[in-house]
């Protein structure tokens, strides 16, 4: 058997979902009994059959990925509970195997996968999707790129045609539930970035922190970092719209106009409000010179 075929067959076999008892799948993707498939390319020894040797790798693969996925989405686990989360994780990882050299990107496709599959969201798809968006934004805020920061001196002379950018590690999110509160409570190990090592995966059963009763509360959140820690900053609707408009490349006057259009905030209060927002954004290092293509994301 040539190298490529061996690798294709072995990868296909070990990446098949484990059984409920965490054993290797009984049949290969081509329908052949897995024992027969394993014996095609793996030698047995006096203690282990070909199948048992292949199973060591299959279990290691699944345990490693499930552990990494659980580390990235503790809030989703808290919302769904351990059994529903496990079911979601195993199905997602089977449907969307990693296509990146780093486990950091394992959950990059989760939102797109979950949106048309409400059956995995434990009776509240909006809540689960809000949490997925927040937790993916958390990963971006943790190790995403940073641009040059605009300081107070850069803002001293605001010209009408001036455009700003936002740090690419910031994600602006409109949410339907207060998932930020749930995530803060669920997050047990926020700054662990030991995502890659060469140790075989082993089954780690962690206690899932039960989520508090979710509050249906439309809100806006900026997921950002400050002093290398990730924070969720709640925004008013006007502040969210202004930041989104600035990120989209609108001039300051146009962004302000868009932000306060239809707002109940009295026009007399707006200058002071703008001053406090720009002051905070500068303090957080959020504003950057406008680039031709801006990274980051918002909705």
């Amino acid at each position, binding site marked *: 058997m040539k190298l490529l075929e061996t690798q294709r067959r072995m990868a296909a076999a070990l990446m098949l979902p484990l059984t409920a008892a965490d054993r290797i799948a009984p049949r290969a993707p081509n329908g052949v009994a897995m024992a027969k498939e394993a014996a095609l*390319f793996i030698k047995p020894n006096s203690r282990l059959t070909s199948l048992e040797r292949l199973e060591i790798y299959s279990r290691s693969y699944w345990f490693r990925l499930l552990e990494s996925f659980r580390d990235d989405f503790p809030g989703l686990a808290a919302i769904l509970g351990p059994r529903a989360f496990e079911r979601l994780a195993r199905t997602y990882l089977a449907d969307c195997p990693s296509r990146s050299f*780093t486990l950091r990107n394992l959950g990059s496709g989760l939102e797109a996968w979950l949106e048309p599959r409400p059956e995995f969201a434990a009776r509240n798809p909006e809540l689960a999707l809000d949490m997925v968006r927040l937790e993916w934004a958390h990963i971006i805020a943790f190790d995403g790129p940073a641009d040059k920061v605009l300081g107070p001196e850069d803002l001293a002379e605001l010209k009408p045609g001036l455009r700003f950018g936002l740090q690419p590690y910031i994600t602006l999110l409109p949410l339907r539930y207060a998932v930020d509160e749930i995530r803060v409570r669920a997050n047990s190990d926020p700054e662990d970035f030991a995502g890659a090592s*060469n140790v075989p995966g082993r089954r780690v059963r962690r206690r899932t922190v039960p989520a508090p009763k979710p509050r249906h509360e439309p809100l806006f959140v900026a997921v950002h970092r400050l002093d290398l820690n990730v924070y969720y900053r709640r925004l008013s609707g006007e502040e969210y719209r202004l930041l989104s408009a600035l990120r989209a490349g609108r001039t300051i006057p146009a962004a302000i106009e868009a932000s306060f259009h239809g707002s109940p905030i009295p026009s007399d209060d707006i200058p002071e409000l703008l001053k406090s927002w720009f002051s905070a954004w500068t303090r957080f290092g959020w504003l950057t010179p406008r680039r031709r293509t801006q990274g980051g994301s918002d909705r």
Partner: protein
Amino acid sequence: MPANSSKAHADYGTGIGLRIPHLNHILERKPVVDWFEIISENYMVDGGRPLAVLDRILEQYRVVQHGVSMYFGSAEPLNREHLRRLKALVRRTRTPWLTDHLCWGSVDGRYTHDLLPMPYTFEAAKLTARKVRQAQDFLEVPIAVENVSSYAEFHASEMTEWEFLNEVVERADCGILLDVNNIYVSSRNHDFDPRAYVEAVDPERVMQIHIAGHSKFEKYILDTHDHPVIGPVWELYRLAIERCGPRPTLLEWDDRIPSFDEVHAEALKAARYAPAPAGARR
């Protein structure tokens, strides 16, 4: 590989893996450590805490990069994005050499994130060596490949693991990261003499040595890096040092990680096996 480059850093001493539970201790207490090994992939990011922490470590310590997902043995070509990010990290750390595993782990763009064993064939050796050369040329830093622990062997194999290792490094003109714990684990899983493995490896190619602990199960041994180094592995280390001379040595402890002092003390046991200075009695 330039003549004697495997010995170029022979005096690097004993390092330990840089791991999260020890970071505060290291940054606050600044313990004396010869060098730290980092998992490259943990720092191949665009910004934030990982790189900030790494920069603080680099201010104080020598760092050597160890990768886990280059997959020289995968039949598919090297991942260009991976190489680009790795090169940026090489420039940042100024690692004097770089290591990754003699294994495969991806196929058709799908990643297993595991260190899967190779079929020991000439076809695989040629392909693997070609990819090591490509990476070495692109990264402009010497590469050493590490023998992995394995739990399976292939019908297709045409040679022993150590013959395969020698075949690859000769063809690629690269170094070896000799993991004596992995040799021990594989020897128990595949019923070969681990000393024969160490004795068969070209000592001139050995750039670095790994030591670690493992876990025993009823029918096999798993390379778990969660225990101290056992006596038989230390004996293999002694044999390797006798054959190769002093080599940069690294203790891996990746799971159930004890205190920094405990890990460091375990690593420093390697000094017991250092060759005696000329004229000295042991």
